[in-house]
């Protein structure tokens, strides 16, 4: 964690609303936030609190309706679809709740899908080694357990050496034990590569791993907590 550095993300009063027929749904209301290189951040919130919307905006899948979001000097809130794609391509690693592996491709090929389009990627086998699956590189998703699939997804996300790893409920579909292994893999990436990790979850137990915990409620930041003694994933219980 290096808070002295310039922030990687700088959100200034960002709001997001969606017109739904006659009513407008406010997903985010005036979020101010700075995220730094090497940080491990957990965003907590109940369903509908706006955490997914925030993750989508941070990941360049969406733009705020109001306010500005900068990635270093890059104004993401003002970027078009093409620019956002380039942003994701070069800087963002995504981990999904349901892994989203491509079933027809082996673990190795799933990782290669990303390393082959990135500018300075690691080798696919290196990425798999980082999640401890180098021996299962030729297995298909259907031949892997849920936890293993999620670890392949993590390998795929970090293969490009992203600036930020965004994880959307990474343990949401897993049991406690498997979830812990997946979280351990994420922690290792964070430790070894120094990547900014942002996890969104409704699982408060995960928060004890983080350097900072951001509590979202009703589209606003309800609380930001510093955690001076992050816990290892293996010690987590939920």
């Amino acid at each position, binding site marked *: 964690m290096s808070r002295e550095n310039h922030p990687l993300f700088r959100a200034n009063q960002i709001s997001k609303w969606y017109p739904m027929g006659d009513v407008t749904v406010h997903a985010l209301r005036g979020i101010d936030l700075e995220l730094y290189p090497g940080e491990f951040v957990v965003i907590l919130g109940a369903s509908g609190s706006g955490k997914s919307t925030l993750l989508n905006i941070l990941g360049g*899948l969406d733009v705020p309706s109001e306010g500005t979001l900068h990635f270093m000097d890059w104004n993401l809130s003002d970027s078009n679809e093409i620019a956002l794609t380039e942003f994701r391509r070069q800087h963002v690693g995504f981990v999904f709740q349901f892994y989203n592996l491509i079933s027809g491709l082996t673990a190795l090929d799933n990782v290669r899908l990303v390393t082959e389009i990135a500018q300075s990627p690691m080798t696919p086998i290196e990425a798999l080694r980082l999640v401890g699956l180098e021996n299962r590189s030729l297995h298909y998703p259907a031949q892997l357990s849920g936890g293993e699939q999620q670890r392949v997804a993590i390998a795929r996300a970090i293969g490009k050496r992203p600036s930020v790893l965004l994880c959307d409920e990474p343990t949401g579909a897993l049991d406690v034990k498997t979830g812990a292994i997946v979280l351990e893999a994420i922690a290792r990436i964070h430790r070894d590569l120094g990547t900014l990790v942002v996890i969104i979850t409704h699982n408060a137990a995960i928060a004890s791993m983080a350097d900072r915990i951001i509590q979202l409620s009703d589209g606003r930041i309800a609380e930001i907590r510093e955690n001076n003694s992050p816990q290892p994933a293996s010690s987590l219980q939920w």
Partner: protein
Amino acid sequence: MMSARLRLLLSDLIRLWKQGIAIVALLACGISTLIMSTTTIRSLEASRDHYYSHYRFAHIWASLVRAPDALLEQIRDLPGITRASGRIVRQAILDFPNSPEPITARLVSIDTPRFSPTSHSSDQEKNKDHEFHQELDDLYLRQGRLPRVGSLTEAVVSELFAQAHQLQIGDTLLANLGGKQQAIEIVGIGLSPDSIYVVQPGLLLSDNRLYGILWIPRENLEAAWNMEGAWNHLAVELENESDRYKIQSQIDQLLAPYGGTGSIHRDDQESHARVRDELNELRTMAILAPAIFLSVTVFLIHMVFSRWIMQQRERIATLRAFGYRTSEITWDVLQVVSVWIAAGVLLGTLMGLQLARWLSELYKAFFRFPEVFHLPFGWQWILAVSLGAIVATLGAWSGLRQIMKIPPALAMHSGALPSTSTRWLASWTQSSKLSAALSPTLRLVLLRALSNPWLTSLSILGVSLGIALLILSSFFEATIDRVLDHQFSQSQHFDFQLAFDEARSISAIHEVSQWTGVQRVEAFRSIPVEFQYRTSRERLALLGLDPDSQLLKLLDQNNVAYLTNTTNGLIITSKLAEKLDVRRGDRIDVQVLEGEQRRFSLAVDQVFENYTGPAAFIDRVSLHKLLREGDRASGVHLTIDPHYQNQVYQKIKDSPFVCGALNRQATLANFRDLLGKSTGWMRFVNAIFAALIMLGVAYNSALITFSERARDLATLRVLGYRKNEVLWILLLELLAITLLAIPIGIPLGYTFAYGMISALDSDSHRLPLVIDPRTIAYTLSVVALATALCCGLVARMATQLNIVSVLKVRE
């Protein structure tokens, strides 16, 4: 109240509307081509049969030089003959006031109504005309009336000829009757059952501008050719056709002393044979085109259906867990298909009936009947519905079997293991050096294609069939072009072929060569003969040509020339060789059917393959020797100086011995015009149909890929793949299917085309299968257009990919 299951069904129908439209459209194409062909066949057959029976179409005809009326009585007395009529049939050159070129007409004598010429009531006259009948091959009057007794210069003209020249009742034209120019007034426009299709002797197709029929009072033709109390053309009606061979030989014997050249049966009658050939062509199309469409529809239903059931596995399993029977669920599924099928059959039937009407209109350029019956209600409806049901069942079958196999407790897989072939490909690409060359997207496309090889093959086959249909609907033009080019540009080098009224001496040839503007004249001798080899017999005209003949060359399909001077024997076409079952070197008996009816035998020196029917050629001098005659000609070929064209035209019209003229350039131009008009429209309809097949299959395949891969594609987008990279995955598959279908579809199309050509192989012509780059270029352009359209649709679909929403749900 609507049941929940029915509501589900409706929502499925709505959700699958794109696939539904494709299935309905393809089925409609298949059913409509079927209805179009069968309805047209039925209507043409009914129109023809009605015409034949009401206007007493004869069974047997015979040409001769001249026979007395008394002989007709003798023929009528033959057992098995119900009617016989003796006519005078001649050929003559016509002179139209506004048309410089000479036009040839067949003149047919008719008996005229004998009533008082002082009668003034026109209605009454018309009625009387209609009550007056020719004994056989009776005239149907479309307009006007029959010539009256005593009004020798009146005539009825054939309908298509009148139309080509915009002739009206009351118009006058000049005809060279037996060497004398005579003004003929048109009093009627009509047709007869022996001239539904009119074609000038020696030509492949009808040319209604340069050749027509005039029905002229018998007395007029008698006077012009000194035929009082005589006739030269016989038509006979039989009581029972099973006696035809016996009766034909009796007639031939009776006519032989009068210059009879042998009787012909309906089967060989030009007009009848042409209509029959056309109906056969329609029958071939009635099987081939619907078969293509319906098989593609089966594929498509299969594709859409299997995919839909895969998606609905959980729902079906849940319903089964609730206690629904498999039969109930199957019935639901069948209802969805039956909605499409019903819509396709209905739409196809309506389209087919409309197309049949248009086709009938198109046929009017070639065939004329007094009336065309539209018979839309027949067995073809039952056929259409049954075919629809069969298509639905075949297409849905494998899907339905899948339903039966779905267990009520369906395991919740996170994804199926890829097929063996996919895994093989994966290990191959990883181990081989190729892996570096294959981009991940390309590998994805390959994997996707191989993960469902059955679907991929069906898509390729479906598009191939569309391409085949394009070839099938457009190859004919190149074939006709080749035949026309071979006949009119390679073989024939004359401007005119003139037929003499009888074999003329050298002085006639000399006279023609003296006409101003004539550059080269070559004589030919044509004589009716009967060839016999073992038990095979064939009647035709033996053509004697000069050894150095430049204006008519005997060329085979490869334009290799055969010369008559290298041989004393026969040069025959392969079609004749086939019919007589002779080979080079065999000797054939030749019975001359004219003059002294000589008999001799000749060796077959050459057999050559060309596009005409049976034909035989010999050196002219050798022929003269065999006939023991001097230098004589049945006609001449000539080239003219274009500057003197009109002078030559006038000479032809005025000549006392020229009775027929064939203008090579004009005939060729008329053929092209007629073919262009008739094939263009069908080609357009077929191009749309074929494009629909390709769109239906390729687009559906892309739709399936998209629905199966939406989640993967969205994932790729999130991972940083650009829009065009993701679109490329979809398009690559589409393009690969199309590219793979081309080398299958084109040969397949030509195979169908060969089948069609073989079905059309008739006595009068043999058509070549021409693989023309233009046909392929045209096919590929339509393919490219359809593919571009399909790519556009897929691109639109890909832009609608909602990244975030796709990712939120579990697959």
